[in-house]
């Protein structure tokens, strides 16, 4: 295993973590990038540690910062918006294909990074798999049932109720919708539910493997089957897997929850994307 710095077109800088496995070029290349202002290292160095684990499983990994973010210089050619992000990720895949011969990719993202990964997959046939951590989600009637049950339990406990009211007031005053801003404060825009459903359907038809991972710290996701309830995907789908780590927070700050996350991603990728 070794890491080397790559400087790509469009001022993009990243690190290729090479597994040293000769057959790794036949496997898809795993790619991560910054989530908003949080650079390519990831929260609590999550993406560096996950790269090492993926290398041990024989996958090469490229982690990078979009231009102007983290350790990549500003681009002068593209504007900072969703289309720019999609174009840049595709440029990265183009260059890695040319230079190293990778022709299939697994995109992984957390929070707004997951949103970007999903959007890229819709427009690029080279995407073979997606691992989306706390990506797009939609509230269902069962979600509201869980939420109000929690509120009821809070009413029964004055201390919890006081905390709840305090948080609500702070949220209202700061106009801060907890899941619609990413970990670095960027506002996330979710597609309409119908569009999301048809997009998932398109990806399945194209043979893309999808792993939706939700954490207990993601306030818009309340129960393990919520994905199936809003997406219309059948639980028996062979291409879609869903995990709900209700012990974890949104950033996987507790090491034990990161261990569970990593092991689940490695198992999935070995099973679905080798």
């Amino acid at each position, binding site marked *: 295993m070794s*890491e080397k*710095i790559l*400087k790509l077109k469009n001022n993009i*800088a990243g*690190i290729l973590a090479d597994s040293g496995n000769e057959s790794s070029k036949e496997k898809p290349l795993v790619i991560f990038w910054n989530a908003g*202002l*949080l*650079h*390519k*290292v990831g*929260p*609590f*160095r999550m993406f*560096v*540690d996950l790269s*090492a684990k993926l290398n041990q499983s024989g996958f090469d990994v490229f982690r990078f910062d979009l231009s102007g973010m*983290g*350790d*990549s*210089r500003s681009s002068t050619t593209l504007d900072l918006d969703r289309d720019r992000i999609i174009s840049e990720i595709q440029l990265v895949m183009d260059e890695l294909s040319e230079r190293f011969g990778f022709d299939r990719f697994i995109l992984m993202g957390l929070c707004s990074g997951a949103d970007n990964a999903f959007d890229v997959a819709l427009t690029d046939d080279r995407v073979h798999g997606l691992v989306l951590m706390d990506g797009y989600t939609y509230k269902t009637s069962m979600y509201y049932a869980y939420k109000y049950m929690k509120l009821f339990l809070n009413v029964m406990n004055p201390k*919890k109720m006081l*905390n709840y009211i305090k*948080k609500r007031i702070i949220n209202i005053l700061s106009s801060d919708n907890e899941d619609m801003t990413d*970990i*670095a*404060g960027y506002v996330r825009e979710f597609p309409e539910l119908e569009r999301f459903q048809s997009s998932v359907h398109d990806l399945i038809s194209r043979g893309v493997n999808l792993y939706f991972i939700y954490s*207990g*710290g993601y*306030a818009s996701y309340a129960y393990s089957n919520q994905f199936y309830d809003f997406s219309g995907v059948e639980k028996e789908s062979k291409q879609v897997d869903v995990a709900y780590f*209700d*012990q974890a*927070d*949104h*950033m996987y*700050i*507790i*090491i*034990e*929850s990161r261990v569970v996350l990593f092991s689940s991603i490695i198992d999935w990728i070995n099973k679905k994307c080798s």
Partner: protein
Amino acid sequence: MFPFYFGSANKHIYGVHHEASGDEYRDEAILFCCPVSHEYMRTHWFLKLLCEKLSSRGYHCLRFDYYGTGDSSGSFLDADIDEWIQNVVAASDEIKELSGCTRVSMIGVRLGAMLSALASEVVKPERVVLWDPVVDGQVYLSELEMLHEEMIQDRSRFKHLPASNDEEIHQILGYQYNDNLFNSIANKKFGLSKIRANQISVVTGKNNHTVLKNNKDKQPVNISYIDSNVESDWLYLDNMEKMFFSDRLSDVIVDLFIE
């Protein structure tokens, strides 16, 4: 902005060189000593922008990640504070060689400020800027542990509250500290009189100089205390993962270099 590795082949250190631009030639490069753990994540964006500002005013700047942190090699579990101090010294040599400058100054943040102070005996910098320096390793770790305990009680973060720390395992705010690292940080103290630099500037928020001003060490004659009037809230749970940014603090630090 030019990312590269330095150090030995099996322990490479990741650095980013911001080349000097602008009209003025300066025979002085600036080495950035970042904080560690969650504070590294919070300040990465701000320090990058500060590097860009200073490099546009003629200073070669180098940011880097200590061994076992950021994009450098190694695991945090293998990290060692004395090795981090050696990394500071190596980074100082590196920026001198890259820039051709004969003089180096350092900007250290939190634990990075302590590391830059401890490395100054070897580096012998022109100036040292210490932003909210960690003065006592034991106090620093206790504060982080208290923040960790507060964090794991936060019901808006966790659906199910995690267990408290096992005393044998130093899991603090997303990182596991090995015994050696934990104990060696705990044993480190910041000695004002040991800082070797022609100028020492201590920049803290909201007039928070008390700890250093009351330090039993003799106050060096070349020290200045600057109140940035910016509260960094290092120990405020709600800000723990928020990116730090302050134009005001950036101006205060740039002004120290642009006279």
